[in-house]
């Protein structure tokens, strides 16, 4: 049996966590288990307005963990995140699903986290100072910490950041895979390449093979071909009803190439 506890502030909610509790955001992941009679013992909610706060100006944007995909899409200053948010779920899920929840949504969900990892986003945890890389939190998905907000560095141009999600059913379908690339350039050369994959491992993860191939190069046909050839290196995709691990590894390079070519065209 699941009980529901609602707290006015996130700090109070954080104190109530533990002992069979799960934090309830948009409900799109947790409520399925509750409906199946397999939910957590306690659902902890919070009506804290900080959870839905958006600071969209400046070099680093800060979004409350309770901000929905639909809210991101409604915010003009967050245009760089729109191609990602648009690919999450259908209209209903985008009205419900939150940024914080997407971080810990199990495979094959969690495509927004893929983009956040590529962008080098950091998570502010409830009741803790500072922020931790989203990438690091992926290792704690079994016991997720309570995230208050996400800080996301804004790409300097549209060409620096790209996201691609591959699904069999359009316009709404879960990921065969998703891939995001953040390629800041200095003097025409890529410095600090970050590539992240979804549905290519137990959790969203960095693609070090592709990153190595891109680092220091120019975003041209030769670099793109090298990155595509090394795309699947170090990835450990699952086999599920959507695709086999073999297929995912085979097509990873194809889709990375398409994404990079799109970014090259700008």
């Amino acid at each position, binding site marked *: 049996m699941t*009980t529901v506890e609602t707290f006015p502030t996130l700090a109070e909610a954080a104190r109530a966590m533990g002992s069979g509790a799960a934090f309830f955001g948009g409900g799109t992941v947790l409520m399925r288990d*509750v409906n199946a009679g397999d939910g957590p013992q306690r659902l902890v909610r919070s009506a804290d307005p900080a959870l839905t706060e958006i600071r969209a100006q400046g070099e680093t944007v800060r979004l409350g963990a309770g901000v929905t995909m639909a809210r991101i899409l409604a915010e003009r200053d967050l245009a760089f995140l729109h191609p990602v948010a648009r690919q999450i779920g259908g*209209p*209903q*899920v985008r*009205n419900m699903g939150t940024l914080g929840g997407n971080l810990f949504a199990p495979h094959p969900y969690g495509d927004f986290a893929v983009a956040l990892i590529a962008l080098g986003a950091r998570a502010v945890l409830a009741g803790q100072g500072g922020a931790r890389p989203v990438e690091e939190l992926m290792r704690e998905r079994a016991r997720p910490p309570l995230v208050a907000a996400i800080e996301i560095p804004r790409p300097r141009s549209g060409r620096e950041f790209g996201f691609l999600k591959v699904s069999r059913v359009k316009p709404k379908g879960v990921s065969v895979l998703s891939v995001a690339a953040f390629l800041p350039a200095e003097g025409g050369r890529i410095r600090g390449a970050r590539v992240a994959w979804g549905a290519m491992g137990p959790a969203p993860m960095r693609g070090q093979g592709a990153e190595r191939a891109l680092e220091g190069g120019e975003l041209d046909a030769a670099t793109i071909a090298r990155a595509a050839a090394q795309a699947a290196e170090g990835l450990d995709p699952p086999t599920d009803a959507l695709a086999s691990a073999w297929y995912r590894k085979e097509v990873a390079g194809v889709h990375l190439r398409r994404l990079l070519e799109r970014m090259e065209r700008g």
Partner: protein
Amino acid sequence: MAKKPVTFTLNGRESAAFAEEGQNLLDFLRRSVGDLSPKYGCGQGGCGACTVLIDGEPHLSCLTLAEAAAGRKVETASGLATGPVLHRLQEAFMERFAAQCGFCTPGMLVSAKALLDCNPRPTRDEIVEALSGNLCRCTGYEPIIEAVLDAAGERARA
């Protein structure tokens, strides 16, 4: 087991009922409030048959906590008609044979209503996108898309 009183607006009318612990909004609307228009399809957020509008936006009522509807405006397909006069979307669905078994229809109707409320003259692609969270296993979607296009056209003329 503790029951929680939930006061909300259902199709423009103040409404109140008791929600059970962890009860979803779909079950609450059907069993506690008595509005049978939203349907239980999958209980997993995959089919959209349970779609209702909360403050004008489509939500999956099966994945919404009943108590989270407190103070909100909930709209369902049973609020579309005005007395015996059907909503233009309902008329268009009839004209276009956009319902066969009818199980997805209430969800389709409210998703379409939410679209037309914020975008009165949608393109075909915008309709497809707006209905992408609602599955239909009978019609092949074409008659539904045509019906929404028709309803949007009428609205523009009206």
